[in-house]
């Protein structure tokens, strides 16, 4: 190291940091450590959960609307099925054979009606499937 290098080296100014530098630095580190992590670790998960819950609510509510908007045939099917179900009352106890036969034929008619409704519902579904087919040029 020549004289010029030595003169550069000697130009260094030594200073003494403030006496509370270490303490104030550690205080800042501790406060810095707690605040952002408090926010991140506590509020972010809560906020995230709320957002997820809102999204799920929106998905399910729109889904239930979709299910409720069925084709008229499906609606008819639903109505007749419910009507048929109301017909399926158990036979009164202590009735004779003719009454029982009449009751069973009533049930048979209801089953046939349900099958017919089911067929019309299926055809309606097939129709809607063909309707939503997107033509490719």
């Amino acid at each position, binding site marked *: 190291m020549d004289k010029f290098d030595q*003169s550069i080296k000697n130009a260094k*100014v030594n200073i003494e940091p403030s006496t509370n530098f270490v303490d104030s630095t*550690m205080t800042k580190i501790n406060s810095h*450590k707690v605040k952002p992590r408090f926010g991140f670790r506590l509020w972010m998960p809560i906020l995230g959960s709320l957002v997820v819950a809102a999204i799920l609510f929106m998905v399910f509510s729109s889904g239930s609307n979709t299910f409720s908007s069925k084709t008229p045939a499906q609606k008819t099917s639903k109505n007749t099925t419910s009507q048929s179900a109301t017909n399926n009352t158990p036979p009164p106890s202590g009735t004779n054979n003719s009454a029982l036969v009449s009751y069973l034929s009533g049930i048979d008619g209801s089953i046939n009606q349900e099958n017919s409704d089911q067929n019309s519902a299926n055809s309606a579904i097939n129709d809607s499937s063909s309707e939503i087919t997107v033509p490719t040029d």
Partner: protein
Amino acid sequence: MNMTDAQEKAIISEVLSGEHEQFRFLVERYHRGLVTHLYNLINDQASAEDVAQEAFIRAYDKLSQYNETYAFSTWLYKIADNIAYRQLKHINRTTDFDDIKELVADDKPSLDEVTDKVFAREAVKKSIETLPVMYRQVIALYYWDNFNYEEIAIIMERPVGTIRTWLHRAKEDLRKELYGQV
């Protein structure tokens, strides 16, 4: 505080495992050197302490990213110099060249005369302040903080060859500034 490198690594491991208060030992070990280093770059004690504190806080936050292959001091100075460099670029410091002319005699004394005189130290310091920021950083790290070229290259994120070139040019500029010769 005397602390070996092995003890320092142990402290870093403790901090990383959750004993945050152990970081105090690292602050105590390096704060004098770091504040002095920054003061010689920024020339303002309050700013130097602010930058040093910010550097310690960032070092604490990013401690998990510290690569133990290198010395902790190298990593800490790298963080501090990055902060200081940005600050210095924003400040756009202006140096009063008249002050230097007053310190360095008008009749251009010889090299020996200048370096021997009492005011030489201040003159050199003032001349260093006129250099570009990266030259000042190289001079501070090499002459005042005793880092070698490889360590300075890590701190300043430049190739070793660039650091050598910058140091050479910094000295040339200083000679011009002080003695009007190359």
